[in-house]
């Protein structure tokens, strides 16, 4: 009797756990890891190898980079575009994310649908849509002319501005979703507490909401910036002839069958993205924010 009761207590006190073999989790992710290895990691590695082995072991392809004025201009265009697009999505996306979190559930769902709807449409379709809107005889020019605001159509399409507008539009969900997810996690009691302690709505935002949302801001910015770096279709369709992005330069080199140089450019693009991810994760404000929020 006693032993029965004792063993009963002992089991009740123990945390119930799923039985796991030592290799369980490893086996579960194995198929995906294998898939990525064969169809992603190996080709990328082979391509990167090509930048240093074609036609023989050499760093010549990289040595060419800093001296190539085309590469330097393209790199600067790429970084500038990514920066402008990142800032643009944040400025436009933050209020939307805030509205999404604050609104009644029905309104939240409507906003979410509006944010996600374009997300489910192909980038190609959306880029063509912008061509229709921004073209010389596009909707915007026609409307402005009809309103008598301009006499000759503005040059909107095939400019850096067009690239920025279209990319901001395409990348907005990537900014809004991480922001909304972080904003939603902010405890409403904190906002009430701040108001009760004498902070007006602006100060509640400035001193509580904004600092607590910094991890979301950083995540959104990183996502948008890194995605912007590799944009190809949109700048190719709506961008100006002089606004070549790095991915377009790579495509050009591939067209010229200059594989080793294309590989070196790809490696550079990858390195810039990785460096940025590393840097962002080390950002003191982000780390402080994460430290404060993490339990």
């Amino acid at each position: 009797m006693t032993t029965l009761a004792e063993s009963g207590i002992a089991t009740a006190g123990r945390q119930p756990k799923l039985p796991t073999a030592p290799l369980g989790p490893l086996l579960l992710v194995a198929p995906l890891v294998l898939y990525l290895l064969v169809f992603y990691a190996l080709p990328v590695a082979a391509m990167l190898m090509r930048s240093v082995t074609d036609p023989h072991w050499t760093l010549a392809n990289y040595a060419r980079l800093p001296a190539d004025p085309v590469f330097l201009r393209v790199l600067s265009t790429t970084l500038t575009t990514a920066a402008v697009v990142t800032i643009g999505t944040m400025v436009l996306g933050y209020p939307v994310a805030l509205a999404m979190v604050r609104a009644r559930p029905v309104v939240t769902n409507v906003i979410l649908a509006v944010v996600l709807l374009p997300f489910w449409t192909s980038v190609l379709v959306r880029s063509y849509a912008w061509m229709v809107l921004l073209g010389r005889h596009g909707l915007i020019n026609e409307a402005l002319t009809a309103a008598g605001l301009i006499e000759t159509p503005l040059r909107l399409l095939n400019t850096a501005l067009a690239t920025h507008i279209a990319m901001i539009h395409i990348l907005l969900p990537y900014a809004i979703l991480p922001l909304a997810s972080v904003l939603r996690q902010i405890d409403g009691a904190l906002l009430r507490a701040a108001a009760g302690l004498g902070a007006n709505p602006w100060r509640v935002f400035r001193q509580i909401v904004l600092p607590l949302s910094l991890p979301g801001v950083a995540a959104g910015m990183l996502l948008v910036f890194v995605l912007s770096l590799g944009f190809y279709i949109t700048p190719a369709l709506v961008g100006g002839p002089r606004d070549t992005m790095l991915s377009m330069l790579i495509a050009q080199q591939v067209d010229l069958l200059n594989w080793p140089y294309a590989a070196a450019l790809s490696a550079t693009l990858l390195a810039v993205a990785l460096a940025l991810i590393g840097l962002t994760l080390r950002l003191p404000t982000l780390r402080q924010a994460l430290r404060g929020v993490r339990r």
Partner: protein
Amino acid sequence: MPRGDVLGEVAGAAVSLVGLEKRFDTVGAVRGVSLEIQSGEFLTLLGPSGSGKTTALMMIAGFEQPTAGDIAIDGNSVVAIPPYRRNIGMVFQNYALFPHLTVAENIGFPLKQRGVDRAERNRQVAESLAMVRLSGYEGRYPRQLSGGQQQRVALARAMVFRPRLLLMDEPLGALDKQLRESLQIEIRRLHAELGITFVYVTHDQEEALTMSDRIAVMNEGAVAQLGAPEDLYNRPVSRFVASFIGESNFLPGIVRGTENGFVVADCSGTIVRAVLSGNPRQGDEVLLSVRPERLRFANIASDKAGENCIGATVTDAVFAGERCRYLLQGDGGVPLVLKEPSGLAARRAPGAAVEIAWAASDTITV
């Protein structure tokens, strides 16, 4: 002090709630609450979840807008004033400390909003930390503190700007029993030291009884009874209050008549006397109530004047540390609970036939 400060400089604020109502969609959360909270008093809103106590508190703080009625602080209506200009201290159940700010920055937050300069802020933060016995914790972040310490920081933050009214929404709800008891004492001490008005919300009747000057028992959005803890315990006006505050035995009966300030009722064959209240007439149905600790086992059939007496069978005996709790079946089938100090006499076994007696003056009609 900034402009728009609705509270003056002296003592505790007097708060009056007049016909306060709050409906969410069509559901009434608070249905016509009128209360005069006196300057410097410790008033507790006590009730089960959904009784409207927290909603009432949120309306005083300004986080909820009343559907009808008025809230006045020191005679001035505050309904149209936003929370950040009401100058009311507030402590939340989950502490609501700002996770990205240190203890000092958290406590300094209300001072910063009021334009107090850094040096003065540091001085007042240190003073207020000393008051909650947490000196030296200035540089910590909230997550580096235990639950009890976090709640003390929250208290310090709610008091540092010297509000004249402090609202507390189940501030000890998330803490374990021992910590809760030590913080209850601390909150009582702070109330005595500061002399400001405290409005405290809890569902824990024991907490309400030990801490409050007065308790407003709330049920279904209305005040069921308002009074000092002892009044509520000894003279509950309804079955709800009698069973919500402490434990009660209920004996349904038919009025036989009245004598010398007592009502005499027939409870399934047993004659029971209770303190007369109202104007019961012969044949009326009444519900009599008596506290379990007022019952005792009568060894001999005592039929003293002013005593009620009933035969019963023990159905269960539970040892609960300082007290022993007996579940009984009274003659006529009414279930009874009797509590006696566990040091007393021999334990009675289930099945034993016993006589129970208690004073008629401990019996009330509810």
